[in-house]
């Protein structure tokens, strides 16, 4: 539901990074989105397709890496995958006092910028 707001924030960040590097366009954005982030990759993709219009990322591809949930047990110290987003028990002892060490991230991992100035654009098409 809030994926459009997330994409607007994402595009603002991408535009800032592009400007800082003197790039005229963003070609690709890679995100890491954990199952506990609250964002749904499919909805992000749909929202991105709408939100990118008119920005320097209007032709950019969005790649979403969906991480897995990993927990660390406070009782026995074991570390491993959680069953589902609503079952974060320790995979070893079954205790509920665990810490989520992966799976709640909502990160921009990297962006690919198009550096060619306008004069080179013709070449860029055929590379």
């Amino acid at each position: 539901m809030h994926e459009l707001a997330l994409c607007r924030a994402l595009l603002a960040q991408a535009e800032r990074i592009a400007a800082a590097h003197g790039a005229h366009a963003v070609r690709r954005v890679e995100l890491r989105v954990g199952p506990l982030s609250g964002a749904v990759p499919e909805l992000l993709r749909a929202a991105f397709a709408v939100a990118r219009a008119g920005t320097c990322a209007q032709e950019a591809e969005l790649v979403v890496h969906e991480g897995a949930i990993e927990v660390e047990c406070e009782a026995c110290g074991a570390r491993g995958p959680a069953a589902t987003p609503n079952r974060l028990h320790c995979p070893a002892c079954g205790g509920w006092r665990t810490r989520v060490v992966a799976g709640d991230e909502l990160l921009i991992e990297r962006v690919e910028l198009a550096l060619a100035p306008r004069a080179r654009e013709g070449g860029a098409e055929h590379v």
Partner: protein
Amino acid sequence: MCEHCGCTVTGGNAHLLEAGTPGASRTVEVLEGLLAANDRAAAHNRAHLARHGVAAVNLMSAPGSGKTALLEATIEALAGELRIAVVEGDLATEKDAERIRARGVPAVQIATGTACHLDAHLVHRALHELDLAAVDLLLIENVGNLVCPAAFDLGQHRSVALVSVPEGDDKPAKYPVLFRAADLVLVSKCDLLGVLDGFDPAAVERHVRALASAAPVWRVSARTGEGLGRWCGWLRALVAEVHAGAAAATR
């Protein structure tokens, strides 16, 4: 290091990379949260609150779970003891804020329009409409929604999630992201437990523990007042804690 994105390209060596082939591209490692701008605004809100020693609580639940009714009952119970202010997130109306103002408490309505959640920028605007020097406790009623609000830090000290008896006891299992973010879970409208016998408060607690959360699960009823004493005690303790922190910071 580039101060904007953390990559290792500096102004001095950037031309080496950029003089590449026509149509060259460069991949920049970012590793920044998608909500970094919101998080910065939330930190700014926290600074506002800290300056005046104001404790802030973010109340989240589905539409109609009884957030405003709980606020009304809380205002009544703490009248003359704590100076409360309320921020109301609502899609379009001033109704909830009017209900609060009718009890003599300042309330800022954030009409979020089409948005389905509050964010730190919206709350920041509301903070500037309040006289924080005259407030001990700021209660923020988020937009009724069990999905989005959890993702946006508002600068609050604590988050509270409500699940009302008519909604069913499986809500924490269905909306793990929001309930995992809660420091306290309130089973609201608990006066209806006798009427709607399908609701098991113990199941709510089991679902919350399955989220690796130690958050207490307490019953409240704005209708009968059950559980209000414990809830108000929790708020008092938070206000005292934040006051102590503010005192320490200004010493």
